């Protein structure tokens, strides 16, 4: 009597777990279908080689590079801020700071990660941009620099706590051997521990990169809405995520080319983050094997 009852319950549970697979399938399906509609009207060559993105105007260009450049530019600024700062903090925590200091400060840093991103966007637009404009001549009201800096602050806890995990995973004997040879803490940290934890730290950076690439609100509020292929962080640009938000805020008539461009941008974004995440996981597995 109990057996079929049990098996039914197990099936239901398995189905719920299957919903997650269904979600992934759903994401891939809608992206693929709408992108396919897009590529029926726009040649793939244009998409990959054109340097302008003006899909809605009289002179249509469908090159994805301006949006990708905008995304990469803001991400680069963010990582340029978060990596040195995060790594320094991680080294400080593992090699220098006392346990009590860590206990108090660690949760405070975690707060940085729990703030909603629209709040960061507000901060970028109302505080960071005017402050930077006073210091950097010619900085426009919307820019990759301002949005990237604030994004860097947002992803700082990711970099610092994941790097910290990587550093603490390195066996003690390496540290002790280094001290035994007379090295200072700093030398031990940067010439022994960090290289030993390098793959873990790389994972941290890759996951932080992925987070920054997918970020929407900070760049939608502070980075601008002008797609352009540039490496200049001082001018307005547009990221993949901002474009999706911009066109969704207008009406999206199902089936039009305008609607399909959202999904073309979405697919590009999905592929980018998927690649980054999986490279990160592959790295992590390789790292774990080293100390098995």
């Amino acid at each position, binding site marked *: 009597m109990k057996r079929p009852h049990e098996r039914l319950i197990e099936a239901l549970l398995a189905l719920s777990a299957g919903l997650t697979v269904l979600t992934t399938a759903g994401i891939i399906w809608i992206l693929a279908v709408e992108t396919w509609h897009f590529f029926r009207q726009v040649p793939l060559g244009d998409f990959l080689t054109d340097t*302008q993105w*003006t899909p*809605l*105007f*009289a*002179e*249509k*260009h469908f090159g994805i590079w301006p949006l990708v450049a905008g995304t990469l530019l803001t991400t680069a600024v963010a990582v340029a801020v978060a990596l040195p700062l995060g790594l320094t903090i991680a080294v400080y925590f593992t090699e220098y700071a006392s346990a009590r200091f860590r206990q108090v400060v660690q949760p405070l840093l975690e707060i940085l990660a729990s703030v909603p991103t629209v709040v960061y966007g507000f901060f970028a*637009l109302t505080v960071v*941009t005017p402050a930077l*404009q006073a210091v950097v001549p010619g900085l*426009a*009201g*919307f820019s990759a620099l301002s949005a990237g800096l604030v994004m860097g602050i947002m992803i700082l806890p990711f970099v610092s706590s994941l790097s910290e995990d990587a550093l603490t995973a390195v066996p003690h004997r390496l540290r002790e051997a280094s001290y035994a040879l007379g090295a200072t803490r700093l030398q031990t940290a940067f010439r022994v521990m960090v290289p030993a934890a390098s793959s873990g730290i790389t994972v941290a950076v890759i996951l932080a990169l992925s987070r920054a690439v997918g970020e929407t609100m900070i760049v939608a509020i502070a980075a*601008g*809405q*002008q*797609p*352009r292929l540039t490496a200049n962080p001082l001018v*307005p640009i547009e990221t993949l995520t901002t474009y999706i938000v*911009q066109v969704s*805020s*207008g*009406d*999206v*008539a199902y089936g039009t080319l305008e609607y399909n461009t959202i999904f073309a941008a979405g697919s590009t974004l999905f592929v980018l983050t998927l690649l980054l995440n999986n490279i990160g996981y592959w790295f992590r597995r390789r790292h774990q094997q080293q100390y098995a």
Partner: protein
Amino acid sequence: MARMHTIRRARLGWAAAFLGLAGCNEKSAENRIRLDGSSTVFPITEAVVEEYARVQPAARITVGVSGTGGGFQKFARREIDLANASRAISASEQRACRRQGYAALTVAYDGLAVVVNPANTWVKSLTVAELKKMWEPAAQHHVLRWNQIRPEWPDAEIHLFGAGVASGTYDYFTKAIVGTAHASRGDYTASEDDNVLVQGIATDRLALGFFGFAYYEANRKALRLVPIDDERAGNGAGPVAPSLATVENKTYAPLSRPLFLYVSGPAARRPAVQAFLRFYLAQAPRLAREVGYFPLPAAEVGQQQTLLADFVARSQQVKTIALAAPPAP
């Protein structure tokens, strides 16, 4: 035992919440009025809806800002009752709406403002020809610096801000300046949300942009208005800036335009919508002036009220046959 009680209570609570939420049906569908469309007309509509809520607290009115084009698409799909529009309905949109019928009500006048940053010292006025040179499709990737417009202007980048393609302002501006609707360069900061444009221009010395007059009026201190010269002798000589006088007597050309509210046949049959529209037309002159547009003269307000009453009467009679729409102004 205590744990089991907690579990049971949790289960009951969850079920109750679910049923409670699911059971909440829309009790007030009759009072729901949906508007969407132009960002230009939005400030007037927002003001009217806010004032109407004091007179009629039961009303549940929502307003979207999808752009005039986006609004018409929703209007044709019957997803909204009223469409805000900063240009007249196009031929293809007319065809899509023919079945349900519609009427166009003029609610205010706008003088499309061309603005620059206050730190911009060199632009004293612009001619229509110069604007065309800046904004036409051929300018994409070519006309990039101020001294390409007039040689005495600085050799610096032009940063352009303007309406996006779903915006009626965009359609109107391109028709009036470039000559063909929807024909413009694509490499500028385009947004259906005029607030984004205001912010962009206000913080950039090299910026130039255009939007509805109310957005200039609300941000006077942060922007500088540029008078426009249409180079036609019969229409007032020299550069003209938008104002109540110049928009009313049409000397601010070609950028003076009416602002519309479109109502569908099915919506006009509902008493709640009729009451709202009568209120809208009556309050529009006062509120349009308050938000920074140019009000209709009293005689014209009367005309619009009559137009509305006629349309309501017609849509009561003719329910299933396609209504012949009045000629678009």
